[in-house]
């Protein structure tokens, strides 16, 4: 195959692309040219031998073809704005996406996900991430429900129940899971003689209840609850046994 070399370059600033030779037959150079042209058009390409990038592209293609294009009116309405009835706080665990486990469709649930699905108390210095999620959901979206969803075999809860661990420390994990200390304390007090695995399950559930109570430390949550415009709920997904239980915070 005739491989004419071509010089391809891009200048910073006004994004000039120039090719010194007319014909480009070398595959590698062709790919680079395509990449640079794509950059100019605003869509950047990834190297063709990146299977993880391909997986993401294929995943989007599946969604676009089977869901997005199949329901044009639904998605054009959604593009104008969202009005979910739920704020869901779930764990970052790859096995517990609320969209999957509770079959939420696009537009139904505003979601915050972190280690151990934890809600710390109102703290404008240390906890702006979760504070912003709750504030936006309650004040801007006016959700009717906040659901804190825990789950089985939670690594965050296991770490909480294992502390202190002098053989291994982390920069962040230990400090974060300590949000659940009131739950751990309660479990050790009431069920300290049970096997560790059972204590973990109890703590996963108690931590959800602890987070539900912590939600009340946010004035905008408290006001919505007292006014009856919002309910605080809890849930527990057990993927070992395939079950889901729910709690509700009742105020009267």
């Amino acid at each position, binding site marked *: 195959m005739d491989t004419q070399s071509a010089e391809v370059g891009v200048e910073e600033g006004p994004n000039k692309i120039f090719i010194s030779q007319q014909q480009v037959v070398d595959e590698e150079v062709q790919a680079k040219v395509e990449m640079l042209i794509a950059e100019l058009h605003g869509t*950047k390409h*990834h190297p063709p031998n990146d299977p993880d*990038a391909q997986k993401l592209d294929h*995943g*989007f293609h599946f969604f*676009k073809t089977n869901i997005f*294009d199949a329901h044009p009116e639904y*998605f054009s309405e959604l*593009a104008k704005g*969202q009005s*979910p*009835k739920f704020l869901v706080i779930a764990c*970052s665990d*790859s096995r517990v*996406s609320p*969209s*999957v486990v*509770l*079959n*939420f*469709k*696009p*537009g139904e649930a505003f*979601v915050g996900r*972190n*280690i151990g699905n934890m809600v710390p108390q*109102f703290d404008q*210095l*240390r906890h*702006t*991430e979760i504070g*912003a*999620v709750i*504030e*936006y959901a309650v004040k801007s979206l006016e959700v009717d429900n906040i*659901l804190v969803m825990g789950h089985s*075999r939670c690594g965050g809860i296991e770490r909480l129940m294992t502390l202190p661990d002098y053989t291994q420390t*982390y*920069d*962040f*994990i230990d400090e*974060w899971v300590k949000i659940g200390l009131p739950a751990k304390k309660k479990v050790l007090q009431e*069920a300290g003689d049970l096997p560790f695995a*059972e204590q973990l399950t109890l703590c996963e559930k108690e931590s959800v209840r602890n987070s539900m*109570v*912590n939600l*009340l*430390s*946010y*004035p*905008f949550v408290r006001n919505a609850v007292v006014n009856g415009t919002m*309910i605080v709920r809890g849930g527990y997904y057990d*993927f070992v046994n395939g079950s*889901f239980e*729910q*709690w509700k*915070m*009742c*105020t*009267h």
Partner: protein
Amino acid sequence: MAPKFTKCMLLCCSAKVSQKEEDSMGSESYEEAIAALSKLLSEKADLGSVAAAKIKQVTAELEAAAADPTKFNPVKRIETGFLHFKKEKYEKNPDLYSALAKGQSPKFLVFACSDSRVCPSHILDFQPGEAFMVRNIANMVPSYDKKKHTGVGAAIEYAVLHLKVENIVVIGHSCCGGIKGLMSIPDDGTTATDFIENWVSICAPAKTKVKSECTELSFLEQCNNCEKEAVNVSLGNLLTYPFVREAVVKKTVALKGAHYDFVNGKFDLWNLDFQISPSLAAV
């Protein structure tokens, strides 16, 4: 036999009522939070009744008895949603779910916005077990800060050190309320929210860049640009975490940025490429 573990957590109002003002919430303890709620409840309740907040287990069946059948029933919605998942996915893939019950080994850590329209399980068809996810306002990654940002730090730490993910993807999206909020913060820096504006200011460098380079664009077009620039700011912030930096240098983790446009049905994906000269790699 094991003691019965109560499913009901009763929180009664204490006789002493908190005198704290609502805006000094930062130092409130758990007891004070409950007392403050109870005070509000007692102000609304009839004289003589005890104000209390109780957490109790519910089922759709119990709720239906009291509920108006024409109104949306959240308990039923959650229950129905789970039963659908259980029948259509959980029970149809027993091998997958029993393997997942033993442990997870996702290849991706994904940062996505909390927006109800952009869940990666939908838009990228992620199956259970594939992606460890952080969802927050405007899919932001703050720089390493052991005091101010333990939540994000913990998620990245767990994903990189414990789960050993191979990719970290930050996905922005169209019509992002958080980015619009960032772009709307007045120049004098005055804020009107408790958390939101402080949080989105993580990507202030993106706003600065867009405002200075895209002066001819409309506000909404500037927001669209900012959605993508903010992803790049977050990718840069990922490198402030030593365990991320190390993994990137060793090429065990790749950083990717993305943008989902739900107005036009498009998905952009890009890599962050690094050139590391030998003298820096030793750091």
